[in-house]
């Protein structure tokens, strides 16, 4: 019998934000169709390092395991991506797993991405309906608008676009590509367009669209293939148009 094939995984551990980070290495039994989540579950079942040292299961965020909830984004071999769709056979070993670095750490691979949800509030990323009572049908929407809007509304708030953006750092409040793209989505909808100005104004404030330096890393990192740079360009145009008009009116 041939020896059982092994998967070597190196994980950056940190018990809490106050404690120092350290690396631990694990050796796991390979199985077909293994992904990074399965690796983390194997470790939870038998939390012993490759060196034979007992440790704790790894803390990490996960939920749907089919790349639609946005929970399990982490750095895998240096790349921001979803752990559930990171197939072991396609990864170079040892597989290095680290938490996203642009968000406050909670423990191990779990981080706090509340900033993204707060930013959605800042730009009023919603359609302001009058109420949930019966007011009849919504506005007609052309298939063209739907086909342009639907991909934008696929954003899972995973944070990959912020992670890879050089403009997102300790000294900046940049909201990031995902939020700008949501502004484009809501400003495109017939009802949302009635309030486009508010959203653009919010994006002209510090941390808004002018903080984008056009590195274009976001669009490459997005696991949902959202045309983020296209959104930034379009929102940028609209924002400047609004600002200039405001100027002339003064």
């Amino acid at each position, binding site marked *: 019998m041939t020896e059982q094939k092994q998967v070597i995984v190196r994980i950056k551990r940190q018990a809490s934000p106050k404690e120092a980070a350290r690396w631990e290495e694990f050796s796991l039994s390979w199985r077909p169709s293994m992904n990074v989540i399965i690796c983390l579950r194997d470790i939870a079942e038998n939390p012993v390092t490759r060196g034979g040292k007992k440790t704790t299961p790894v803390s990490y965020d996960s*939920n749907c395991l089919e790349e639609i909830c946005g929970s399990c984004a982490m750095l895998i071999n240096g790349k921001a991506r979803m752990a559930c769709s990171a*197939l072991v056979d396609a990864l170079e070993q040892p597989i290095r797993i680290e938490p996203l670095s642009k968000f406050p750490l909670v423990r191990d691979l779990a981080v706090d991405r509340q900033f993204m949800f707060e930013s959605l509030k800042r730009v009023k990323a919603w359609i302001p309906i009058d109420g949930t009572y019966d007011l009849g049908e*919504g506005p007609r929407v052309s298939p063209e608008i739907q086909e342009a809007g639907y991909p934008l509304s*696929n954003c899972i708030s995973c944070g990959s676009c912020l992670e890879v953006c050089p403009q997102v750092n300790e000294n900046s409040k940049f909201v990031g590509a995902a939020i700008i793209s949501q502004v484009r989505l809501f400003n495109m909808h017939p009802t949302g367009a009635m309030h486009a100005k508010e959203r653009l104004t919010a994006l002209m404030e510090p941390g808004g669209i002018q903080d984008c330096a056009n590195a274009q890393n976001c669009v490459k990192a997005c696991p949902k293939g959202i045309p983020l740079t296209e959104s930034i360009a379009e929102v940028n145009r609209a924002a400047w148009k609004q600002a200039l008009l405001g100027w002339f009116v003064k």
Partner: protein
Amino acid sequence: MKQPKIIVVGGGLAGLMATIRVAESGVPVDLFSIVPVKRSHSVCAQGGINAAKNQKGEGDTTAKHFDDTIYGGDFLANQPLVKRMCEAAPGIIDLLDRMGVMFNRTPEGLLDYRRFGGTLYHRTAFAGATTGQQLLYALDEQVRRHESEGKVKKYEGFTFLSAVLDDAGVCRGICAMDLRSMEVKTFAADAVIFCTGGVGAIFGRSTNSVVCTGSAQSALFQQGVDYANGEFIQVHPTAIPGEDKLRLMSESARGEGGRVWVPRNPLDKRPAKTIPEADRFYFLEEWYPKYGNLVPRDIATRAIHRIVFQEKLGLAGQQAVYLDVSHIPRETLDRKLEGILEIYEKFLGVDPREEPMKVFPGMHYTMGGMWVNAEDQATNVPGIYAAGECEYQYHGANRLGANSLMSCIFGGGLAGPAALKYAKNLEKGADSTDSSVFSREQKKQEAKNQELISREGSENLMVIWRELGDTMTEHVTVTRINKNLEKADAKLVELAERFGRVNLSDRTMWSNQTLNFARELGNMLLLARVIALGALARNESRGAHYKPEFPERDDANWLKTTRAKYVNGEIKLTYEQVDISQIPPRARRYDAAK
């Protein structure tokens, strides 16, 4: 009484809808969720949402939607509330449309509709093949708007542990744990609405998300909330097997023309695409000529099991059949099904636009859940309401595809105002409840954590969970045999006993996911017994509950709701009449038109 206070537990479709309804009436809501609500399991729903809008001029009506739902559920659902849901459905679609959901459109700019299982009408509105995600986001955005206006306070990263019940047994709030600090706290409320979703984790692997453990339902059951029709578990016919989860391949694939088949000769080694039509066995189309690939899920699932286990026609002898969309134009696939085809491509490395997909049935949904009344989602415990998958009211013995999103939104929309009305009519609210009621519950739950974390046994949580899942999947899903169900229950008792000797591999008190899972697993082990015992007792076949020893539906003895109670630490099954006041039961068959 001053301003009432409402708590909602769970931020999926039902929980968010309940929250919106309460918040828009000006009453503050505390919303609790394990994950940020935008990451709730509703995002996994794919195919669509049903409403009889008759947009295709086929003569569809809400009465037909109602009949399809009752018939599809094999007459086990109480009928009046289902009727109200079907009548409300077109208005709910309008509301979602107004919220900006990017539904697929017709050239005229109207909503497009597709076909789904268990109906002959185009009744399902959809947003690509990620409808659940799109609907959840729309409600999430509305809740965020109310949150920014100070009407909603979110407690994301909190897990529900228990209800706070006063000496009269009235719910006065909840006890929850902060999943970072692991602190146990109580929160007062005049009424609490539970929207805590499905129970997939009890079956180990399922199409459900990680948080769908049924832990909250089980905790409430142990505190006196009855649990109804637990034995009715839906196994979806088309999922992609995986070690960590079974990934759903939506019924919409068949709604858009996808076909299920196997080679007539199981030894056929030719690539699927080169096998000529004559050598393919489209067994659903042959066996059910009227509905074809769009028979309800219980029927399709049993047919696939028959093909694999009795006819021995599984692909290359394995537990798999083909789900084929490769004959549909690529442009149509990308416009209507891209989301799910991407899942298949990403996780299996095969493009389903070119090659048929290999699928097998997987545990998907619970029709059963917390018992609620026939009017307004109230459970039998005063002050506790339930909506969404965690309650039992809408789907009878089998849920039709694309009815769950509707039942979540309708149920949540009903529960919000009902809880509010109850709270406003209370003579004495939670604010006048003695503080000792809260502190004793908090101490009880803290002691439970302490006891769990200091256990010095040799049992492993993950091993017990795997054995639980294997037992439930083998004996309590598609085919149920009494002696096996007895064995399964004995196994569940053994697992619960072994759970008493677990050793937690993490004893820290910061973001300890092991401790949280231990609490969930303890609750799962008990709810599993409610499911298994309900199945053992029900000696008939109805909808998703199939017993070869009792192959027929038995209305004389079993046209009744199972209502499990927890009495002195024991599970007690009681039964009550089903309200069949609207449509008299008739035989259910899908080989011909109804």
